Structure formats: structure tokens, C-alpha cells
């Protein structure tokens, strides 16, 4: 019996050894890309830039293909910065990565992308959440083999796309917007229903209508600081960075405010700005340096005009990068 027990324990240890030495690295590159980068980047950089697709997206017409983080790196003398990005990542995904930064590592400044839309229901209840949660298993502060087994055995919540959709639609229908001015449409659903884009020759400008719906769904919300999961995650990030003595910057990404205004009107812009103000106030009070890019990029510098994204042309990326670089330089010696 003892021998059998030893055989099992020995197999587990051998498995752990072989997995860590041979399989973990390639699997991390495939499944947990941000951690794969972090393991090296944290030792060779002063600043890390954590982002999503906004960092690397380039327009087909761009001659300058640099990412935002590369542009920042080229503009900050005396500091070295590297970007780590994975599409659709949000604060909940950045959090475990930041938690894994070694306190003795070279990196002492961290710029974390704060995407306004990530606070909204379409992103919170995204069908991709299940896949992201699985990836998160690889970011646990545990042995590589254990993390892998967690992913394989579904140790994470895996809400189906249908369930996510249902929750989102429920919020669109029943979450009311409370404002001081007259708002005839107090839910996303009624607001979207009310938007009309009549054409002079009759009928409706359907593409415009669809885009307006996207804007309303993406930005017409009020951040509930008690229940919004992103707030919880950003709070934790601020806390961890304080503990690790890392200077933290939240980079509020530019949104196409111009289009929001022209498509839907000032009431939608009100929500965008109110949410931004709330975030700036909340996290400034927590000692985070806030970089506000919300209104910095003109509409023409948004690469995709038929969708609500934070994908900028080279000019747009440069504006965001310079704003971040300027702020970083401002706090260079701190």
C-alpha cells in the first residue's frame, strides 16, 4: 500500500516537473500570453503598459504602424516601457497579472488601460467572458500544473453565450438611468427604440440607426460603484500596486465623443463624461495618477466608423501616446 501511494505521489511530482520544464512555456504563450510576457518584461522595463486591442490596432492607411506603447516608449527619455496586450482584456484580467509582478522586479510604474465601455453591460456580459475566465486559471499564483488542471476541469465560471445575452438584455430592459434633467427614455431599450433616422426620400437610415444603438448600449450607463465588477477590480489593482510600491496610472481611453454627440446627442455624452468624472475622482483619491484621454482624439482619427471601438489611426494613437508620455515624464522622479 505504501509503495502504491508513493507511486501515485511520485507520478504527480514527475508530472509537475515535466510539465513545468517542457510544456508550460509553449502553453503559456498560447493560453496565457500576458503572463508569458510579464515573466520577462518585468525585469527589463521601468514601465509596463497593460492594454487590449486599442494598443496594437492599426488602420490599413497608417504609415506609422507603431503601437501606442511603442510610441510612448519612444517619447520617454530615461525610461524603458513595454506593452502587454490581449484583445478584450479588462480590469478583471489585468488584476491577476499585476498581482504576479515581483516586488524585486525593475518595473516600478504601471499604466493600465481604463476602457469606459468595459464598465458597461455589453462588455460585462460578453460571450467571451467564459474564455477569459478560463485563461485566468493560468494566471493564478499556484503551480503551473495545478493552474492547467483548473482550466481543464472547469475550475472557473463558464457562463454560456445565451446566459450572458439574457442577463445583458435584462439590464437593457430594467436598469433605469437616473438623471437630474429630463430624459424621456430611462432604459437602454426604450432609448434605442426612440432613436429614429428618417431619410428625406422616406424610410430610415438603417446603418446609422444600428450605430446609434451601439453607442447607446455601449455608453448609456451609470457606474454603480458598489456592484460594478470593474470598479471592484480597479480598486484591487490600486490596492495591490500600493502594497507593491508601484506607481499606478489609469489611462482612460479616448472615445468617439464627437460621433456620440452627433448620432445620439448631448444626453449620451453626459453619461460618458459623468462616468469619466466619477472614475477620475474615485481613483485620484486612491492615489492613482489619472490620464484622461476621453475627449482627446477627434472623430476623424477613429479607425472604425461603423462600430464602437477604441481603435485609432496613427494620429489617434499618437495623441493618446503623447498624453501618457507627458504624464509619465511629469512624474519621472517620483
Amino acid at each position, binding site marked *: 500500500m505504501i509503495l502504491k501511494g508513493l507511486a501515485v505521489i511520485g507520478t504527480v511530482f514527475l508530472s509537475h516537473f515535466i510539465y513545468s520544464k517542457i510544456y508550460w512555456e509553449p502553453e503559456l504563450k498560447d493560453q496565457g500570453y500576458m503572463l508569458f510576457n510579464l515573466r520577462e518584461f518585468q525585469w527589463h522595463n521601468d514601465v509596463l503598459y497593460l492594454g487590449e486591442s486599442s494598443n496594437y490596432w492599426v488602420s490599413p492607411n497608417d504609415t506609422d504602424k507603431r503601437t501606442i506603447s511603442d510610441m510612448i516608449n519612444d517619447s520617454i527619455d530615461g525610461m524603458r516601457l513595454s506593452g502587454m496586450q490581449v484583445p478584450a482584456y479588462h480590469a478583471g484580467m489585468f488584476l491577476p497579472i499585476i498581482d504576479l509582478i515581483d516586488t524585486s522586479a525593475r518595473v516600478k510604474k504601471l499604466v493600465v488601460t481604463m476602457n469606459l465601455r468595459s464598465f458597461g453591460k455589453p462588455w460585462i456580459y460578453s460571450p467571451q467572458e467564459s474564455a477569459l475566465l478560463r485563461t485566468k486559471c493560468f494566471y493564478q499564483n499556484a503551480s503551473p*500544473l495545478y493552474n492547467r488542471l483548473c482550466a481543464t476541469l472547469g475550475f472557473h465560471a463558464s457562463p454560456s453565450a445565451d446566459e450572458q445575452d439574457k442577463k445583458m438584455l435584462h439590464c437593457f430592459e430594467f436598469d433605469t438611468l437616473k438623471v437630474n434633467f429630463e430624459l424621456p427614455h430611462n432604459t437602454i431599450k426604450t432609448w434605442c427604440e426612440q432613436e429614429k433616422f428618417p431619410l428625406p426620400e422616406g424610410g430610415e437610415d438603417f446603418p446609422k440607426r444600428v450605430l446609434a444603438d451601439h453607442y447607446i448600449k455601449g455608453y448609456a450607463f451609470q457606474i454603480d460603484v458598489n456592484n460594478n465588477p470593474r470598479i471592484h477590480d480597479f480598486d484591487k489593482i490600486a490596492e495591490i500596486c500600493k502594497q507593491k510600491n508601484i506607481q499606478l496610472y489609469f489611462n482612460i481611453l479616448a472615445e468617439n465623443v464627437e460621433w456620440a454627440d452627433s448620432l445620439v446627442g448631448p444626453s449620451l455624452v453626459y453619461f460618458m463624461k459623468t462616468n469619466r468624472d466619477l472614475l477620475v475622482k474615485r481613483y485620484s483619491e486612491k492615489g492613482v495618477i489619472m490620464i484622461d484621454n476621453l475627449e482627446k482624439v477627434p472623430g476623424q482619427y477613429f479607425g472604425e466608423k461603423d462600430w464602437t471601438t477604441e481603435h485609432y489611426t496613427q494620429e489617434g494613437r499618437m495623441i493618446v501616446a503623447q498624453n501618457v508620455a507627458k504624464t509619465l515624464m511629469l512624474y519621472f522622479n517620483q
Partner: protein
Amino acid sequence: MLFNSWIFFLFLPLVFGLYFLLPQRWRWLLILAASYLFYGWWKWEFVIIIIVSTLLDFWVAQKIDASQEKAVRKRWLFLSLSANLGILFLFKYFYFFVGSTDWVQQLVHPHQKIRDLVDFLGKALPVGISFYTFQTMSYTLDVYYGRAKPEKHLGHFAVFVSYFPQLVAGPIERFNHLNEQLKAKHTILYENLQSGFRIMLYGFFVKMVIADNLSYTVTSIFNEPSKWPFYWNIVGVLSFSFQIYADFFGYSLIAQGVAKLFGINLMDNFNRPYLSKNITEFWKRWHISLTSWFRDYLYIPLGGNKVKKQRWVINVLLVFLISGLWHGANYTFIIWGALHGIFYLIERFSPIKLRSTLVKGVLTFVSVTLAWVFFRAADFNQAVNVFKGMIGINDGTRQLDTQPFIFLLLLIFGIMEWHRGNLRFDDYCKQYNGFQRWTLYCFMLFCILVLCGTEYQPFIYFRF
């Protein structure tokens, strides 16, 4: 709850420990509660369907047994079958055959509540509904034909219907085989534990290492067959053939292993089907519990082989078509069933009789594998695209980055299956000495820990 989920690894020891701590008279209650928890972990609402089905068949069986009049017995049987098939139709086939049709969509469109209900029926398929519905129906039919005496204890009957190891994907057990075992007093026996763990280990190896690793290849090819060269399409189709076997065989093994820990013997569901020499033999070796169900409750009542040839042909085709439809509400499953029916008839009536066992085996495997294309494809067009891909039409150029070790593992699995012969895995292990056995266990454990697929993959047959 899935066997390959972390929660099951907490659930099983807990239920096992409590089961043997409790006095015999309360054990059924524990197993029933555990079974409902196991099922309800996914969506508790659907436990209600099992309870309705249980109550109905319990009651109907008593009524059938109490009556001597054939007409009355028949009426009760009709009630049970129509209710069970009605539930099955409502949750599995209604949306496909009725709800999604244009006229129904137009009819319900102005009525929000009805539209929501129709949409719900389109999306909400209670897992394993075909399995437990067939199991309860077999009970009522057995009572009707006088092959079984009805269970007088509602709780024991409820356990028979919902017994968690085989609730969601079989084997579809017969009342006479399972019920008495469930009611018997069991004690912890070393032989049962040894056998149960052995079978479970092999089941997890087959599911998590073989089936899950093939999933990537299969999904990549079937999603976009035109993007790959012909040889990758062929590899994809072959991979699915092994994936579905490993997935379902793995599930059945784990179910058998778990039941064995409690002293229960579940029937074998597979007997190395890909080594069959003809389609008839294949169906005697593949999903045995379903095949025998169709044989006993459909094929034989239709007249079996004691009818005229034309009628027999129709009966055979009907059984295969219904078997296809049993798997899912999609034309692809019906085509898959029809293909098997046609293969079966060709084999029977073909004037050419092959002598070589090898040629017959290869031909059977190729036929079965080609039919799987319809089983796996989301729709008819996708299946056609896979066939086109296999013969090089729309020849793509993309190369698949499948890890070669997967095919090595598949080869090892194939050798193990071939080598164990007709022995069950636990009996196969008994042939070897302790060192050899434990080397094999450690190898399988190592593969499960290190080489299993990283994606959390539900069992394919859960959908049915």
C-alpha cells in the same frame, strides 16, 4: 455536473462517504438527492421534468399491473408513452419541426410571452433527456409485457430513473438489471474499489487525453473545411471518428467505474466497435444499450425478421431513421441514421461476399467514418463541404498545427484496445503483475495530468 469537472471530484467522495455511513434504509434517499443535485447543478429547473416523468411512470406501471384487461393496460401504456414522447418532443424536437417554421414564427411574433416560450424551447435542451426518457419508457413497457413487476416504492423507482452515474448519457439500463442492484445492501469491498478506480482511470484517460486532444483538429477542420488541403480534411474526419468513440466510451467507463464503487454493475456500452467486420456487428458493439433498446422495444414489436422482406426493409430503415432522430433534432442526424440503414441493407442483399476479414473491417470502418461526417456537421452544407474537402475540391492551403504526440497517444490507445481483446479493462489489468499494472496506471495518470486537453470539454453525448 460533468464527470470531468472539479466539482465532481468533491461530489463523489462526499456521496461515497455518506452512502456507506448511512443505514441501508436511508441510502436510497441520499442517492436520489445526490442524483438530483448532480443533474440540477447544470439547471435545477429541469429536475422537474425528471420528477414528472418518474411520478407518471410509477403511477402508470401500478395501473397496468393492477388491470387484467388488455385494452385497459394498453390505454395506460399509451398514456405513458405519449406523455414521455410528448415531453421529449416538446423539449427536443418542437422548435426544430414546428417552432422555427416561418408560419409559427409569424403567428407568435406579436405575442411576446408566447414568442419567449417558443424561443426558450428552441434553446433549452435538458441534457440527457433522451437517455432517461428511454429508460423510464423501457420500464413501463417491461411491466406491460410482463417482463418486470412494478416497483412499489416510489423512492426506489425514482433512484432507478435518476441514478447519477448513468443519468445523462447512459448506459440506458433495464429495470430488472439495475433496480435490484440499487436496492441491495452494499458494503465497501476492496475488489469493487479496485475495479471501480481502474475503470474510472481508463475512462478519464480515454476522455481527457484522447477525445479532448482530438477536439482541436476536428473543430478546426469541420468549421472551415474549404480552408484545408484534402489530407487535413481526411485527418479531421478520421479524428472525429476516434474522438466520438473516445468521448462516449470514456463517459461510459467513468459511469461504470463510479457505479462499481457503490457495488453496482452497469452494462457494457461498447465492445471495440471499430474492429467490426460489418455494419450489423458494428451495431452490436456500438452504444449497445441503445441498440438493444431499439431491438427490444421497436424492431421486435414491428415484427422483427418474421415479416415479409419488403416490410422488413421498411422496418430496418425505420429503426435506423428513428435512431438517427433520437440523437438530435437535425436533418444531419436523420441522414446519418438513414446511411446506416442503407449500409445495413446493402450488406444483407449484396451478391458480393468478401472473404478477407481485413478488407471487411476496413470497409466497415470507412463506411462508419464517412457517415460520422453528417453526425458531426452542423448542417447539410457543412457535411457536403467536408466531403468536397476530402476529395480535393476547393483545395485549401492552410496547415494545421496539431501536436504530433496526439496521434502517438491515439496509437497507444488503439494498441491497448486491440490488446485487451474482449476483456473489460479491469479484467485485462488482472492478467498482469502488480508492477506492470501500476506502471500502466502511472502512465495514464501522467497523461491525464500533463497531456490532457486544456479546454474544458463537455461530453458530446450530453447534447442528446
